[in-house]
Each structure stands twice: as structure tokens, then as C-alpha cells.
């Protein structure tokens, strides 16, 4: 950034910062490619879109507010089971399912936010881990409602908007998931560019300074935590509706851990990092799915070590760094 007298008024400068970039437009256009290029992989694409949405919600609390959570899948699971149960009990209208999931996950997120906000460092990691594990065990025990180990049976999703029926090739599933991802992404983008988004970045940059400028830090964190829980819940509901199953792994530790890896891979605090990371991770996992799961985790382990050591800001961070270097040279 150059420093000399700015001929542009500060407002205009900030507006320019927040404008949609061509790279963003290209990204979203590219998400339409699977329909045309890889129609055999639409089911996978749908899974990627759902996971990307889930990872986006984690980015909001981790990348922007700095909360390290090892139990974020709890809200994903609450959303999934809510939508699944609603359908199982006879009302399979998908958009209503999303709404119900958002409310339940949001409620649970709001209540737990009061606990989460009081901790930092190891205690915070343990509390979030504990909440996730407690929920997992509870879901396992309450198998009369959750189906336990076998999962929820009898979910039947009604046609979306009354017209689009789920098909076995995944056209509807991917269209639905992608639409969900895009709409929620627009909301997330708006949050990031709002005064609240600025406050979140302030918390992440210097949590000590925030109260000294009069910021109610706890209230801010509770808000973003609830919002992130709502988004995770919507992602979970999308999974339940498009696959018509829900199992315990939806709120398991494995899912929380995988999501963390995906976010780190893509790069935190850049909104698109989670999306990129999810895409790369899940495509790779699909390609290597023939591999023994043990060996998969060997390479993931090496990848984690490599990313933390060599590419601390993930893929997007590395690209940004490269772009800066190239700009300096020219």
C-alpha cells in the first residue's frame, strides 16, 4: 500500500476494498462447472458444498474472532438431527427443515456461548472438546430418538420449492447445497464487512485493547458464536436432507478435527480459505479412498506438520504472499 497523500476520500477507499473482485466471480462461476464437466461426481460435489459451509462457520469463530474450538461439529449434528427428526416425524419440507435446524442449533450455540466466552487457551480447547464429546455420548445413549449407532431412519425429503425432487445422480442435491452455500456466504461476507466484522478482527488482533476502547468483548463473542452455530446447523440440515440419513459421526470429534484441518489448509480469516480447503481435502480424500484409512492419516499428519511449518497461512495465505512478492518485483 502506498502512503502518499490520498486523493481519494477514506469512504471511497474503503468502498473499493469491499467491492467484489473478479477472482470471486470466477470462483463462483467455477462452482457451476461440476454440472457440465464432472456430472458423475455431483454427489461428491454436494458433500463438498455442505462441508465448505460448515468450515466457513468455523472460520467465523476461529479465523475472525480467534476462538479455538474442537467441538464445533456439535452444532452441525444438532442441525442434522433436527432436520432429520422433523422429516421422520412426517414433515419433510426441506426449507422448513433448514429453518428448524437453524433455530435449534442457534439456541444451543447461544446457551453454550455463555460458557465458551469465559475461557482461553487450554481451558477453552478442553471445554469445547468436552461439549462436543458430551453431546456425542448423549446422542449415542438416547438411541430411542437418534437411532444411536445405526443412525436415523425414515427421512424422506419433499421436493424443494415443490418442484425439485432429489435424484440419484445428485443434480438436485448439488444445486440445493450450492444454493444454500452461496446464500449463507453472502450473509457471512456482509458480516465481515460490517462494523461488527471490524470488531471481530479487533478481538483477534488484540483482545487486551478492545475493552480499553469500550468494546463489550463477551457480548461480541457470544453473537458470532451463535451465528456460527446457526450456519453449522444449516449445513447439518443440508446433509440430512440431501443424503436422507443422519448418523452419530455428524457430531463426532472426527468431523470437528477434519474441519479444523480443512480450514488450516485453506487459510484462516480469508472467508474463501475454508471453501478452498474443504474442496482440496475432500477431492484428495475421494481420490485416495482406496487407501487404508491408517495411511490416509499418515499423509494428513505430514500435511499438517508441513502446513504449520512451511505455509502457516494456508493455501490462500501462500498465494497472497506470492502475489505480494510479484507486485514488489514489478
Amino acid at each position, binding site marked *: *500500500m502506498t*502512503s*502518499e*497523500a*490520498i486523493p481519494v476520500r*477514506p*469512504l471511497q*477507499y*474503503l*468502498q473499493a476494498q*469491499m467491492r467484489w473482485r473478479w477472482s470471486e466471480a470466477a470462483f463462483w462461476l467455477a462452482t457451476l462447472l461440476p454440472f457440465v464437466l464432472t456430472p458423475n461426481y455431483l454427489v461428491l460435489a454436494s458433500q463438498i458444498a455442505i462441508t465448505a459451509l460448515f468450515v466457513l462457520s468455523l472460520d467465523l469463530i476461529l479465523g475472525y474472532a480467534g476462538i479455538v474450538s474442537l467441538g464445533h461439529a456439535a452444532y452441525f449434528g444438532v442441525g442434522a438431527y433436527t432436520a432429520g427428526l422433523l422429516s421422520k416425524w412426517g414433515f419433510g419440507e426441506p426449507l422448513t427443515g433448514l429453518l428448524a435446524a437453524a433455530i435449534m442449533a442457534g439456541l444451543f450455540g447461544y446457551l453454550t456461548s455463555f460458557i465458551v466466552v469465559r475461557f482461553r487457551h487450554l481451558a477453552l480447547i478442553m471445554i469445547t472438546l468436552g461439549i462436543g464429546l458430551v453431546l456425542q455420548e448423549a446422542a449415542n445413549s438416547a438411541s430411542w430418538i437418534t437411532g444411536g449407532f445405526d443412525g436415523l431412519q425414515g427421512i424422506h425429503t419433499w421436493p424443494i420449492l415443490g418442484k425439485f425432487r432429489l435424484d440419484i445422480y445428485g443434480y438436485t442435491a448439488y444445486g440445493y447445497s450450492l444454493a444454500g452455500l452461496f446464500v449463507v456466504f453472502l450473509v457471512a461476507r*456482509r*458480516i465481515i*464487512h*460490517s*462494523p*461488527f*466484522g*471490524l*470488531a471481530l*478482527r*479487533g478481538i483477534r*488482533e*488484540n483482545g*487486551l*485493547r*478492545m*475493552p*480499553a*476502547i*469500550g*468494546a*463489550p*468483548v463477551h*457480548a*461480541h463473542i457470544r*453473537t458470532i458464536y451463535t*451465528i456460527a452455530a446457526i450456519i453449522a446447523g444449516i449445513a447439518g440440515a443440508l446433509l440430512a436432507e440431501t443424503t436422507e440419513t443422519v448418523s452419530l459421526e455428524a457430531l463426532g470429534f472426527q468431523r470437528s478435527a477434519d474441519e479444523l484441518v480443512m480450514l488450516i489448509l485453506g487459510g484462516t480469516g480469508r472467508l474463501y480459505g475454508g471453501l478452498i480447503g474443504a474442496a482440496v481435502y475432500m477431492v484428495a480424500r475421494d481420490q485416495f479412498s482406496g487407501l487404508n484409512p491408517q495411511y490416509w492419516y499418515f499423509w494428513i499428519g505430514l500435511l499438517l506438520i508441513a502446513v504449520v511449518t512451511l505455509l502457516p497461512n494456508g493455501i490462500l495465505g501462500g498465494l497472497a504472499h506470492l502475489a505480494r512478492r510479484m507486485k514488489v518485483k514489478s
Partner: protein
Amino acid sequence: MSANALATHGLNKNFGSLVVASDIALVLPQGVRYALIGPNGAGKTTLINLMTGMLQPDGGRIVLGDDDITALPPEERVRLGLVRTFQINQLFPHLTALESVTLAVCERRKVARTWWRQLTAYGDEIDEAYDILAALSLAPVCHRLTRELAYGQQRLVEIALALAAKPKVLLLDEPAAGVPREESRELFAAIAGLSRDITVLFIEHDMDLVFRFASRVIVMVGGRVLVEGTPAEIAADPRVRAVYLGKARHEAAS
């Protein structure tokens, strides 16, 4: 309406057997410029931490204007007008100077919690932030990341953040610390330019600044207030000399 901007009554704090504040009773009338001096470890920063709520006292009261703020959390005290700066810069490294000050303005105006409207809809707040930075000669660099600014400029941003909160009482913790002579001109101008409505208490080791800006001086030693008076009185006080001279002798020996 109290004529006193800030008052403490019997403020105590100790960490185990280490007493960092002992029965501090201070009264700061409105509009006066106070300097707080004393050797290292006298408890000056601790006092500011107690006043702002970052540290909980073991006993005593703090009154801001007419309000007893002893039980209030730090952010509430800021809202009532008690603002501080830090001895070591506490800034937002990856935010630009403009973004940092805009944030402070938004928090003051209680609009920082709106997540559904774009920041660019808050032109008034952005303009106010820009004006604060311009008054401190930081307008040309307002779009630079804070971490890329020179140390003197960062120190000015530290003050800008405090001013954005529209303080009634401003506590400056060694505002000139670490600033090289070439860059301190704007800093001194900024402090001199502070409105007469603001009551200022600043911790300083630089006696130049103390004599230029303070109308009264408080001397702290070992967690206690030793003496209070005009700069001239303090300079002539034998007890103060003993504290500093003794210290100088100690430093020369080691």
C-alpha cells in the same frame, strides 16, 4: 455536580506479601494536568490498572465524577469517559490506522454490534476517525497497516484510539516512551493540543515533559503517594531528591 473528575479513596492492592498499592487517596479536579512520577516499581502503572478496572483492588473506592465505578468492568468505565493509553503499544497490527480508529469510534457510538449493514454506510464514523488522525498528522498514512508505521506514528495511533473514545479523564502511561527525538515533536504537540475539558494524568520519566505540560505533580514510591504539589515545589522537595538521587547513585554503582 462534582468538581472532581476522578477520585480514589483508600485504594489497596497486594499480591501475597508484595504490596503494590497502599491506601492511595487521590483527587483530580476537572481540567487539571497531572504528572505521576516515581522510580520503577513504584506502582504507577498498577495504579492506572486499578483505576481502569484491569486490576481488582483489595480495598477502596474509585469515583468518576459523581459515579462510583469500583464495581464496573473496564469497558463500562471507558463508556463513562475514563480512558487510558498503554506504555507498550497495544494496537491492532493488521488493521490500518483508519480501521483501528474507526473501530474505536464505532464502539463508542454503540454501532459496532450491527452485523447486517456495511461499514461503508457509516460515513460519519469514518469521517470522525479520519479527522482524529488528521489532527495528529497521520492522514497521509491512514491506509497503512499499523504494523508498517514508524514507532512514533504508532505511538500517535495509540493516542488516537484513546481520543476516539471521547475521554473526560485521560490516563497516559509514558506517552513518549521509546519515541526517538526526531519523532516526538508531533507527540508533544498532540499532548499540548488536548482540549482543556479533558483531565489528564500522565506517567512520565522525562522531566522536560513534566515541566512543560503538568500543572501538578504526584510522586509515588513503593506503592504509596509520597507527596503532591506544583512542579517547582516537587523539584525543590528534599524527599523527592533523596528518592531520585539515591536511585541515581544506585544505578551509577551497578
